[in-house]
């Protein structure tokens, strides 16, 4: 089976804007799933509300497009009630970290065997560009017209602290690395969390001096720092610019995974 067979062709065209990074993340995920040799009939995609959460609608497997923020709670029910199913959650920064923050940390703590992929565009895209819990300090959105005054969440640090078994961060630029990370996440028993920073030209880019789609992708590339380099600089006591973010595999561990077969 080719990974294109995972798409619902009768659902095209999709709703994502021109230049949106979400499609890249869906492609990487499906490529990783293809590598896992999972079958469609044993795979379930769950999502909440937002641009990212539209992803399951385009995938030709059982899919549950739920309420805002609650995808992980729904996915917990699916996975526990039928542990034979492979469960993947697509979410976004608003869905996961704002309205769904509680379900996110408890999902990590419980360490249910699901994989959560967060398309972090640092803004509410579907509602037209409001600030989110990951909008960087000083960045503009329709609800932070004078620049965001609140510090953003580091979603990966949150997942690590809360107990997820696998955590990594990449961007829509790092296609190969992201695919490998998703593959590793799918393989790791327990809660796997992969954050993928994505460009959002329509809601974020145009308000924040990214005139072209490529400008924002290039920003993601130039502002990502490999974990090894980050750790080395930290060890050497060197300055790490605050606008840099760490990419790579941040945690892989073996905390106990609950799950009783019905």
């Amino acid at each position: 089976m080719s990974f294109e067979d995972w798409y619902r062709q009768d659902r095209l065209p999709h709703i994502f804007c021109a230049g949106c990074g979400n499609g890249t993340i869906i492609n990487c995920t499906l490529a990783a799933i293809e590598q896992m040799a999972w079958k469609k009939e044993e795979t379930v995609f769950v999502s909440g509300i937002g641009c990212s959460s539209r992803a399951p609608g385009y995938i030709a497997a059982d899919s549950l497009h739920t309420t805002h923020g609650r995808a992980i709670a729904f996915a917990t029910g699916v996975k526990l009630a039928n542990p034979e199913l492979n469960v993947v959650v697509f979410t976004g920064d608003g869905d996961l970290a704002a309205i769904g923050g509680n379900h996110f940390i408890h999902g990590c703590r419980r360490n249910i065997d699901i994989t959560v992929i967060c398309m972090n565009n640092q803004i509410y895209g579907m509602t037209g560009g409001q600030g989110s819990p990951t909008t960087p300090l000083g960045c503009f959105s329709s609800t932070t017209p004078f620049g965001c005054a609140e510090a953003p969440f580091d979603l990966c640090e949150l997942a690590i602290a809360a107990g997820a078994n696998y955590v990594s961060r990449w961007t829509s630029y790092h296609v190969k690395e992201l695919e490998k990370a998703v593959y590793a996440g799918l393989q790791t028993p327990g809660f796997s969390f992969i954050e993928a920073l994505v460009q959002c030209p329509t809601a974020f880019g145009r308000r924040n001096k990214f005139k072209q789609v490529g400008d924002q992708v290039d920003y993601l590339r130039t502002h990502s720092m490999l974990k090894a380099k980050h750790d080395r600089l930290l060890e050497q006591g060197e300055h790490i610019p605050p606008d840099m973010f760490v990419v790579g595999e941040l945690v892989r561990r073996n905390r106990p995974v609950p799950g009783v077969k019905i």
Partner: protein
Amino acid sequence: MTRIEFWQGNTACAEGALAAGCRFFGGYPITPSTEVAEHMAVKLPKKNGIFIQMEDEIASIASVIGASWTGARAMTATSGPGFSLMMENIGFAAMTETPCVIVNVQRGGPSTGQPTMGAQGDMMQCRFGSHGDYSIIALCPASVQEMYELTAKAFNLADEYRVPVFLMADEVVGHMREKIVIPDSVPYVSRKALVKGTLPFKADSDLIPGFPQFGKGYGVHVTGLTHDERGYPCATNPKLHEALVMRLVDKIESARHKIADYEILNPDAEEVFIAYGAPVRTVQQLMHDQQDKTLGFLRIRTVWPFPEFALKEFKNARRFLVPEMNLGQIAREIERHVQVPVVSLPKLGGDLHTPAELLTALEAR
């Protein structure tokens, strides 16, 4: 062999669910429903089922809906504040036609109110609490026996009509202990499976589509957005939205007679009591004390959809008296359907109506 037990209402509720084949419970502790969860926590793992204590009631009902899509009979139990939190996902279950059972052991509200005292203040919330138009089924037990039987029945109704079904109990019935006769088995109605090759949200003549269980190769898309018969979002077509919402309502409302569960005593009476839940017991006491055939009684177990046709059976009725542990939520519903006066007998605070109070109301003409 039937057996006799002396159980608390909440225990009977959990046991009724287990007898009906419930294999998933997602819940969150809240007085006065917690014993249902505690009992399930002990019993479900022994039956190869799943008990999970979620982080809040929003997550509880979400996990229940997720479990239901894998084909499991799934339930949650809560009370007022938790019930309020569940409302959005209850609408999701109605929109996606997900069978699930929600137990609400009602306590005094609004807000935190009276955690340990009985009430019936959520009767309208269970009918209309989530946004938009939809229909649900709600059952009201008045005894420990009915906590068992109606919980089991709730699963059958949920699976048959693909709808959230509420067991609207109250603290009085949930916490009382009394004799209960446990049957050998309870009736079982299975979920109608989707015929492979048919559209997942195309309803049959009964207005209910077959269930495309996850993991069976249907590749179904389930969304809370307005969707077409394929299950695909189609949120800007006015006619499609209207047809979908009308079907969700009609599949329940058109089956009102079939769903209805009520008892009629002395249909020729002029003075008729109507009750559901705990106040039923006071009316029964009064009828027992009076031995008076001039008193009629309509005792309702399925409050929603409301069986208004039952009212017509009291042809000589000159007055309906409705004791409720709220400010007349169902009395107002009854008023919509009858020409004669409806006397609401509200009682707040958690105490049951006394027979004397009902007698006083009866004598005040």
